[in-house]
Structures are given as structure tokens and as C-alpha cells.
């Protein structure tokens, strides 16, 4: 009960500020929180990255194994993306098998990487039709202060950028850097009435789950989109968000080039 009241108070506060054209933490509508990226945190993983979006923290670890290819792509590696929203990261998360939120999160992150063809899967074939590399992208939430999705996308591509293919451990040749050829960046907006805010914080989300995520590649192509939450979106609003998402992604992508 107390929590419900708190949420209502936050909601009113967020909405009243928005009417004045302001966000509660002083950001502009199209401004991300401070982004921190640390890579190679986990030496036992093939690659890893910890990303902070303000107080939101996500760690992604990449593990690779040798496995069988799919019958119809006998010469390509395989990406498997998984997200654990462990109860450590939020009082609303519960232990147990993945629920619809963690499944959606993993699948949207996966789509950005897969559809941008960020990883050159053709270079992950060991023996055609027999052995290819499996890439496990494991998203592990640590602190959910809003917009886990963009933090996870960013951590995933950052971790891939620092991944070494462990060929020696599996006795199939020399280690080599994972071939990454694109930098997909997702931008999630919160839709509030006739406005939208990028990178919403948890307090802002108290106004309701009304998200649109747009992932773009380095040529500004859209590679993944997901409207999430029960709300109705106007077409012209969509195209406004698209423009902002493309330009924000470009800026964030610069950060990835330093890795």
C-alpha cells in the first residue's frame, strides 16, 4: 500500500515537471544518463562488459563453445542470448525461470545484434556441417534503475567487441578476436502523452510502461524495433522518435569505437 502511494506521488511529480517541459533529474528529453563502460571484467569469460546508465548496472559475459551448426546454415556460428533478471537487481524481480520481461529483453537485444549482422558468423565455422562456434551472450542485471534494455544492448555489443575466440582451449587452432563488423545501438524512449523521453529512469517509468525501442546500425538503418507496454502510438510520433533514436545512437556508437 505504502509503495502504491509512493508510486502515485512520483507519477504526479514526473507529470507536473513534464508539463513544464522538464525531467525530474534535469535532463533534456533526448538526453541519456551518464554512460560508463568497463570491459574485460571477467577473465574467465571470453569477453565481458559492465555498463552503467546512471545507477542502472548490467554485466554481460560472453562464453563460447564448440557445437553443431543448424542444418540449413552449416557454415555459420550460432548466437544464443539469455537474460537473468536476478532478484538482487530489483525488489520486483523474482528467482525462477525467465518471465516475459526477461525473455523480451533478451530477444530484443538479440535481434539488434543478429539483424545488424554485428558478428560475422561466417568466420565462426570450424568444420562445415560439423563444428561451429556457439556464442552465449549472458545478460546479468545488477541494479535496475530504469532502461535495463539499452544498458544490456550496450553491454552486449561492448562485451562482443572484447571477445577472444578460445580456439586454443578447444584445440581447434589459434585464438583470434571475435569478428565484429557492426555496432548496433538501441535507444529506448518512454512515451508520455504527447512527449517522449529517451533513456527513462525508474522514477520516470512510474508514469506507466510505454516504451518504444529502436535499434540502428552504423549506417543508420533500423535493425530492430519493439513497442512494449499497453498503449497506443500515433504514426507521426513514431517518426519523431525514429529521428531522435538514430541521432542518439550515432553519438553512443562513438563511445563503442574507443573499446
Amino acid at each position: 500500500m505504502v509503495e502504491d502511494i509512493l508510486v502515485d506521488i512520483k507519477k504526479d511529480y514526473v507529470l507536473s515537471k513534464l508539463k513544464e517541459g522538464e525531467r525530474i533529474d534535469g535532463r533534456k528529453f533526448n538526453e541519456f544518463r551518464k554512460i560508463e563502460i568497463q570491459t574485460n571484467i571477467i577473465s574467465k569469460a571470453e569477453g565481458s562488459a559492465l555498463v552503467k546508465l546512471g545507477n542502472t548496472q548490467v554485466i554481460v559475459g560472453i562464453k563460447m563453445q564448440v557445437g553443431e551448426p543448424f542444418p540449413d546454415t552449416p557454415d555459420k556460428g550460432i548466437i544464443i542470448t539469455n537474460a537473468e533478471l536476478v532478484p538482487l537487481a530489483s525488489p520486483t524481480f523474482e528467482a525462477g525461470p525467465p518471465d516475459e520481461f526477461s525473455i523480451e529483453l533478451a530477444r530484443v537485444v538479440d535481434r539488434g545484434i543478429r539483424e545488424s549482422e554485428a558478428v560475422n558468423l561466417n568466420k565462426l565455422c570450424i568444420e562445415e556441417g560439423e563444428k561451429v562456434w556457439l556464442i552465449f551472450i549472458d545478460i546479468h542485471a545488477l541494479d535496475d534503475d530504469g532502461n535495463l534494455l539499452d544498458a544490456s544492448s550496450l553491454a552486449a555489443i561492448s562485451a562482443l567487441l572484447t571477445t577472444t575466440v578460445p580456439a586454443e582451449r578447444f584445440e581447434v587452432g589459434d585464438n583470434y578476436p571475435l569478428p565484429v563488423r557492426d555496432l548496433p545501438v538501441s535507444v529506448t524512449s518512454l512515451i508520455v502523452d504527447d512527449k517522449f523521453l529517451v533513456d527513462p529512469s525508474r522514477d520516470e517509468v512510474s508514469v506507466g510502461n510505454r516504451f518504444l525501442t529502436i535499434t540502428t546500425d552504423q549506417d543508420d538503418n533500423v535493425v530492430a524495433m519493439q513497442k512494449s507496454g499497453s498503449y497506443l502510438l500515433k504514426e507521426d510520433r513514431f517518426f519523431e522518435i525514429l529521428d531522435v533514436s538514430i541521432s542518439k545512437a550515432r553519438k553512443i556508437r562513438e563511445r563503442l569505437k574507443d573499446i
Partner: protein
Amino acid sequence: MSELNEKLNEKEKIQLIFGDKRLDGRKFDELRNIKIEAGILKRADGSCYLEMGKNIVVAAVYGPREVHPRHLQDPSKAVIRYRYNMAPFSVEERKRPGPDRRSVEISKVSREALEAVIMKELFPRSGIDIFVEVLQADAGSRTACLNAASVALVDAGVPMKGMITSIAVAKADGVMVLDPMKEEDNYGEADIPFAFLIRGRKIESIALLQMDGRVTKDELKEAFRLAKKGAMEIYKLQKEAIMKKYVSESVENG
């Protein structure tokens, strides 16, 4: 395994576009054959049978009804559930029964699309359950299911702000095409499922939007144009199906 299979990226090339025609002879902005029948189940409060190309789906609506256990009730509105489920025999390779990650995600975004238009505040503490069985799948099953669900909701008398109509657009051989079938979905460059709220014969807003592939902003604009055109055609068929059921009932009762 099914999870892995589903992630498969079948990008080997086959030719999809021949001049101004598609592999199955359709024009770029042409829908597959659609057949809709309302009220086909006795037990459900509302139901709908729908074919769209080779997709065959059945939707049922139960409710508004009591919610058990009680702690799942919402004192301010009805709780909406949506279950997209594929029959084991609906696809080439037998699918293991039960939900996989793909169907969990589809169920979530489909539910959210309907939640946005069902007047759920009218039924506090109740539940409205929407179950859709995919008996045969051939690209676009999520859109077929939403169209069927929407008709079943009307058949059940659930008040909504308007009709939900769903359709996908794909990019195939660089061209945007309406209502892709399996080959265009598998070998095409992008897939964009839409659902719209249609009210008073007008497309008012977007209730569902997803996308995977690779498209430019201009291609997205074309996708919207095609999707809206297709949606209006489907909307007419949905209305006809409801009307037909209503008329046949009136005749029976009259």
C-alpha cells in the same frame, strides 16, 4: 533446441520478386486469401476461426469472469490474459507442446495491443482471457491470431475502443511487400508486424509494432503505407464476419 532453431537466420538467397510480382503471383500490396468465421465454439464466450494464406488459427475469449486465485485480481480493472499457442503439428518439424520463448514474447506484445483498446475499467476484479491456437503456421501467425482474437472479443461482447487489425510488411529482394508468406519471411531482409486501432473506418493509432531485419527510414514509410492499406481490407472482412454471425443469430432467434 526449438529455441535454437527458432533463432536460425536462413539468409541463403532465393529469388522472391519477379518484375512486379511475387513468388506466389501476388502484387506487392496484395494480401493472401483470408477467411474469417465468428462464433464457431460453444464453450467459449466468443470465438473466431481465421485462415490467412496457409495460416489456420482459432481464437476463444472467456470473460469477463472471476479471477482465481484472488490475489491476482485488480480492484480497478479487468486483468487481460493472452495465450498464443502453436499446435505441435502446425509446423514442418513437430513442435514440442508448451510455450517457448518466442510464443511468450508474442503473447506479451499481443496482450499489450489488446489491453490498450479493451475497456477494462468497466470490469474491476474480473479477468478476460484470450486464447489463440495456431493450427497451421506460415509466416504472420501472430497477426492472424490478433485479427481472430479481435473478432472473438467482439463476439464475446467485450467493449473495446475500436477494432484491432494486424498485418505484417516484409522487405524482399529490396522491395517492401504486404503480408509476407513463409518464403518472404525466411529469405527476405526484414519483417515488420503491425497492429492498428481502427475506429470509425479510420486507422487511429498503432497498437503493436515490432521489427527485425534491416530497413531505411524511407522503407519504413512505405511499410506503414502498405500496412495501413492491408489493415483496412482486413478490417472489412472482420466486420463482415461479425455481421454474418449477428445476422444468422437474428434469423435463428427471430
